[in-house]
């Protein structure tokens, strides 16, 4: 009951913010439209819908970091949090209540992106659901990053780190906008050491129905997601401990 009540409140806070809806759903859709029109005029393998859509889905998840980070950072500095800290809520109530609303929201965002891709010409296949499932660890990773930054930074800093740095950083290093192999060298090395590139690759393999090749890319994402989820929970719990 306690988790449900807090989750419901968090969900309403997110969904009633029109800016969240615009950036979370509108921005990835605009990008998909824009890049698919470019692809029609100047054909490039990179911007084929089967290649582009998994990348746009992962890019869209970066907004979940921004929303979760902003929600926690704003809550932390509000008197409401003081009230909640003096209520019988425990650390796990807070943590679950912040994670739960964002995961279905991320998957809904992914589903809407694929529906638009189908309208634009992507062949419908059952693998669209497979690729959405494969994207869950990436969604968890981005939510955890948001919770982590929201726990240690104020809302203005979260806006800068998640809204500007993380969205750009994860997009450049994801192999979505340009082929990281074409840049090569250290850049490609960094991209492959981070999870964003692997999240997009795993999504592309799943969309093609090539599930045997989803791994090891997905292991990278699962590893990073597990690591940052553990760090986010640990730091949130330590911040909750009074001093």
């Amino acid at each position, binding site marked *: *009951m306690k988790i449900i009540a807090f989750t419901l409140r968090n969900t309403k806070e997110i969904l009633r*913010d029109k800016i969240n809806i615009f950036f979370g759903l509108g921005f990835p859709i605009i990008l998909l439209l824009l890049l698919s029109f470019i692809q029609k005029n100047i054909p490039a393998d990179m911007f084929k819908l089967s290649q582009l859509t998994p990348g746009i889905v992962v890019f869209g998840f970066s907004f979940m970091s921004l929303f979760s980070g902003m929600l926690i950072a704003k809550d932390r500095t509000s008197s409401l949090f003081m009230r*909640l*800290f*003096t209520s*019988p*809520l425990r650390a796990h109530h807070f943590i679950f209540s912040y994670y739960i609303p964002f995961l279905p929201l991320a998957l809904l965002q992914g589903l809407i992106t694929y529906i638009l891709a189908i309208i634009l010409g992507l062949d419908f296949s059952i693998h669209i659901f497979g690729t959405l499932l494969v994207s869950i660890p990436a969604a968890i990773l981005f939510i955890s990053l948001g919770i982590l930054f929201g726990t240690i930074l104020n809302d203005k800093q979260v806006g800068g780190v998640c809204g500007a740095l993380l969205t750009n950083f994860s997009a450049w290093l994801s192999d979505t906008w340009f082929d990281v192999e074409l840049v090569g060298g250290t850049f490609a090395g960094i991209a492959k050491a981070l999870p964003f590139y692997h999240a997009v690759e795993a999504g592309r393999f799943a969309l093609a129905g090539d599930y045997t090749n989803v791994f090891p890319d997905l292991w990278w994402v699962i590893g990073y997601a597990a690591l940052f989820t553990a760090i986010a929970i640990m730091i949130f719990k330590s911040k909750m401990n009074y001093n």
Partner: protein
Amino acid sequence: MSAIKTQKLTKYYKDLCAVNSLDLEIKEGELFSLLGVNGAGKTTTIKMLSCLSKASKGDAFILGSSILKDQLKVKEKISVSPQETAVAPNLSVSENLAFICGVNGFSKEKTKHKVNETIDHFNMTKIKDKKAKNLSGGWQRRLSIAMALISEPKILFLDEPTLGLDVIARRELWKMIEELKEKTTMILTTHYMEEAEALSDRIGIMAEGKLTAVGTSKELIAETGAKNFEDAFISLATAGGSKQ
């Protein structure tokens, strides 16, 4: 049993002693005001008693539960109405109230009943579907206090509850506080002397982290030989005094 009993409760922030060996006993059903100039240690005391801040030394017991060892039990018995309005801005008045019922583990039926009852009691029927962020400051404060009360706390901490309210809203809130007396133990901090004098059963005055005097307003006036309570407060808050 005492509602609150502190034993040498002390809080250090590095070298600064914010609360110094506080020994205080508050009876059940009492409205106790904690007064002092800024930095006297009132808010730190409330933060320790409500488990928001850890005591450096000593302990306190909330209806028999230690703030150091039984925090969850303490939190089940208390509620805090913070200095600033503490509401969820994008939720309506009734959603805010239901939210607090939920985090306190109330059933669906009990939540519905308590929300309706509180809306009636606080005359919020007309605004029950309005989002909290669209309410005036006075209504937000009223909602914030309603949220503190809906969880049926045995002990309520009211940290400057009438700050920023106009005179009519303040008097309405006084009336509500009066109605709560005896059912709920209340600890009030305020900078308004007339508020403390009008509402309190007893008043404690803090200066530089120490409790310098405790008594009724009349006792404190008599103790200092002052003309009125404000003069008595100034005398006790700026110099040492004696406990009764």
